């Protein structure tokens, strides 16, 4: 069994722990992802799934443990990590008073990308008809689609998706899945926080369940469990 070296892993997290006040949400999560892998993260409400994702996205710091994303340390090289990841948050993070197009134009400017590609993205996510309407009037599904569109402006090597399927209709689900497949085929790795397996079942290589602040791995139904040396329990 070959254990991948850190430098080739997309995500290499060891003993990540984080507390809020005096209670620990994450107690030591160890997780490794290779490029091209899609891993689902499951767990009940409050099990720390979003927190773990935000730590990997360098938005918050772990109180213990280390993690490398694309070989860069999240604590010491956050800028390099941010350049590699695409983070889809639970809240869309859009500007209500700007139109859909303006939100994407703003993102393009911040990413130093060409603004002319924005309309193509809007079409791909099915919002071209609403391009000139302020986001304030959008349904949560439409906002999610716009957030996905913003993700398309980045070319991430690691996808960190927090419940990406919530609020999406079946067309949206297909959109999300086809995008994930495209990115993964291009070599990206994806860590997807899920409430339920169904929308992503075909995509996942395996799942990880967060319980009591630690990770337990189960292979997804159809995949080969060999070659996955993980989990903190019993080690």
């Amino acid at each position, binding site marked *: 069994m070959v254990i991948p070296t850190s430098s080739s892993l997309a995500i290499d997290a060891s003993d990540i722990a984080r507390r809020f006040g005096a209670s620990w949400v994450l107690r030591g999560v160890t997780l490794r992802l290779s490029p091209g892998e899609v891993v689902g993260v499951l767990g009940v409400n409050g099990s720390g799934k979003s927190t773990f994702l935000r730590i990997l996205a360098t938005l918050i710091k772990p109180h213990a443990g280390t993690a490398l994303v694309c070989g860069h340390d999240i604590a010491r090289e956050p800028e390099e990590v941010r350049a590699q990841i695409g*983070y889809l948050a639970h809240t869309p993070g859009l500007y*209500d008073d700007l139109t859909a197009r303006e939100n994407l134009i703003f993102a393009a400017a911040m990413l*130093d990308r060409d603004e002319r590609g924005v309309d193509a993205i809007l079409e791909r996510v099915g919002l071209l008809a609403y391009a000139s309407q302020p986001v304030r009037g959008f349904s949560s599904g439409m906002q999610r689609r716009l957030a996905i569109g913003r993700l398309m402006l980045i070319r991430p090597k690691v996808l960190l998706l927090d419940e990406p399927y919530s609020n999406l209709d079946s067309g949206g689900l297909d959109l999300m899945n086809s995008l994930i497949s495209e990115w993964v085929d291009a070599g990206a790795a994806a860590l997807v926080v899920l409430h339920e397996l169904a929308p992503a079942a075909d995509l996942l290589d395996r799942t990880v369940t967060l319980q009591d602040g630690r990770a337990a791995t189960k292979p997804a139904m159809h995949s080969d469990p060999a070659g996955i040396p993980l989990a903190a329990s019993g080690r």
Partner: protein
Amino acid sequence: MSLRHDWRRARAIAWKDLTAERRSKAGFNSVVALAVTILAMFGFALGPDAQAIRDAAPGAIWLAVLFAGVLAFNRSYQVELDGGALEQLILYPGGRRAIFAGKLLANFAFVSLMLVIVIAVGIVLFQVTIPSAWPALVGIVICGAVGLVTLGTFYAAMASRSRAREVLLPLLLFPMLVPVLLAAIEATKALLGGNIMSDAGAWARLLVAFDVVFLVATFLAFESVIEV
């Protein structure tokens, strides 16, 4: 990241803030209305004797702008906090200084426009005669606005994300702005009284020094303050 990219980002942020502000309708109008109301309140508190009001005009104008400005500064971060946009903002690669620069520009535009309106109303309400040296006055006002906006934008980055933000921002900001307040008010009084260059000049130099010192200091410190 190249300077050109930083400038593009700063411009984008300023444009976003101002566009959102313009469209929200609630923001600018109500803040300016508040400033004018405060000005009127000063008139009631200090008047109606014409001389007393005229003497108090510079102070009343700047205080009105200060109090209303606090709302504006907190609002400029509110727009990021409401939908969770601040996280996305931090994740864009490149320095945070562009964020600070963009918000500075947007807040400066906001406060400048507010100052113009409040000064106009103040001139009327407080029976101020416009001095011949009014270009110098404009210069003083601009320098004062820069100081106000610099510290206001900086402290609001913290206050807007803490508890009791309405109280914390003035508590942090006002004592720090004492030099700006004194300089702006005294220089204004000197120019209004025809008592020209020496007094006003010294205050102007103090204002400029203040602005430079704190522009540099806040730019250096912003990175560590905007991170979560």
